[in-house]
């Protein structure tokens, strides 16, 4: 969670607000000097280091497995160095299935040794005791995707027989290796969302610290299959269950996310807080929407940030896309974003964005 400010203001009041609260009334906080126009670097980021994946989930937001080649290692390594030198606080290493990347552990290690809090997301298929041991050493959070309490449900959604057993084993191996903040994520589609109430018991049995879910984002593969979206009744039941389940399963935290929050915050305050790097090197402002401001094969992350990514939500094209607001809580592709949007940043000499 990103919170906003500590401040000894004129009246001695301490300001402690979430970004969403700030975004609802940004002028007040900007005028009082609490809110800058932009950040020197993102606070957090997610990097889809590979498009390779052994599974084929029916809803995958970035449609993995994907065929474009991953970034060449010298370019990927340069990104790692930029993340460290820009003093980005935390980065999530994702995919595809990130453990399939030949330099997966190098990326975790270099970031961790550089002081970055590293999280990672895996489907668990490749997990071994040795991999779990190294992930535990380098990460501060590890998430395994588990889309059902049984093999019948999970394997159907994830498109591969045996994936439930591998994912459940991965959670256990991470726990046994002493990994911090082991969480299970559940993507609720119309096919599996009714099984969610059986997930907390499974998570407790596996030893997970947290169970996380959120409304299904109707982007990527899910965007092409509208019938995957839970019915309104299913969505309501899920939310009701989560509200009443808190504290009933020992220390297990049950978290309900809002995938639209980053858009609401971005449009409210104008500046970017987070960063997405795709498998083929695009630098984006949203983990779900394909809005990009440059590519690692052409420019360094630090340059792209300074040339405009840091104020991406102020870009006229982005404002136009979301002129009608953002659909919430279920994300959908707005008109005009059917294809990825590649926006031009200011030129190094300070010209205006194209």
């Amino acid at each position, binding site marked *: 969670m990103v919170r906003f*400010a500590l*401040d000894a203001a004129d009246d*001695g009041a301490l300001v402690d607000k979430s970004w969403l609260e700030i975004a609802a009334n940004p002028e007040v906080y900007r005028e009082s000097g609490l809110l*800058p126009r932009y950040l*020197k670097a993102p606070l957090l980021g997610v990097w889809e280091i590979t498009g390779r994946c052994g599974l084929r989930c029916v809803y995958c937001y970035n449609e993995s497995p994907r065929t474009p080649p991953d970034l060449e290692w010298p370019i990927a390594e340069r990104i790692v160095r930029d993340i460290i030198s820009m003093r980005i606080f935390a980065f999530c290493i994702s995919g595809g299935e990130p453990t399939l990347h030949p330099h997966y552990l190098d990326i975790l290690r270099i970031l961790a040794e550089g002081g970055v809090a590293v999280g990672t997301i895996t489907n668990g298929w490749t997990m071994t005791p040795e991999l779990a041991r190294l992930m535990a050493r380098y990460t501060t959070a590890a998430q395994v995707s588990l889309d059902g309490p049984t093999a019948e449900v999970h394997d159907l959604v994830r498109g591969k027989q045996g994936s439930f057993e591998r994912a459940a084993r991965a959670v256990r191996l991470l726990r046994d290796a002493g990994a911090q903040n082991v969480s299970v994520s559940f993507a609720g589609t119309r096919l599996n969302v009714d099984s969610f109430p059986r997930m907390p018991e499974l998570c407790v049995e596996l030893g997970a610290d947290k169970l996380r879910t959120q409304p299904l984002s109707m982007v990527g593969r899910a965007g092409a299959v509208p019938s995957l979206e839970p019915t309104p009744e299913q969505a309501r039941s899920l939310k009701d269950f989560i509200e009443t389940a808190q504290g009933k399963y020992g220390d297990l935290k049950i978290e309900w996310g809002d995938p639209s929050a980053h858009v609401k915050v971005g449009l409210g305050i104008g500046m970017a807080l987070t960063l997405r790097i795709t498998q083929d090197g695009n630098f984006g402002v949203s983990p779900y929407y394909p809005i990009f401001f440059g590519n690692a094969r052409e420019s360094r992350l630090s340059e792209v940030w300074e040339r405009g990514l840091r104020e991406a939500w102020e870009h006229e094209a982005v404002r136009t896309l979301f002129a009608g607001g953002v659909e919430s809580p279920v994300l959908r592709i707005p008109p005009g974003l059917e294809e990825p949007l590649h926006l031009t940043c200011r030129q190094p000499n300070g010209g205006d964005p194209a």
Partner: protein
Amino acid sequence: MNALDVTDKPRLRPLRWRWDGEEGQHIAVAVPNPGGIYFLNPSAAKIFAACDGTKTVAELAGILVEAYEIGLEQAVKDTVKVLDLWREMDMLQ
């Protein structure tokens, strides 16, 4: 937890932080408790950056007096309030 005294010399724990904002006067800092990244405005940032264990609370308040032309009494009150919060958040040794 004892109340802070003006003669105390607060020192930050090792934290990951950076100067931030377009003029480099804000500070973004990862806090241990409750976790997450907090953003300090320029006046809080001035105090934060000076919490190196060599300056008393009164001297830290003096930084605010000099920068913002406010009275010492108000500055001490504000400084103690923000330091107390940082102590609760395990940001101070």
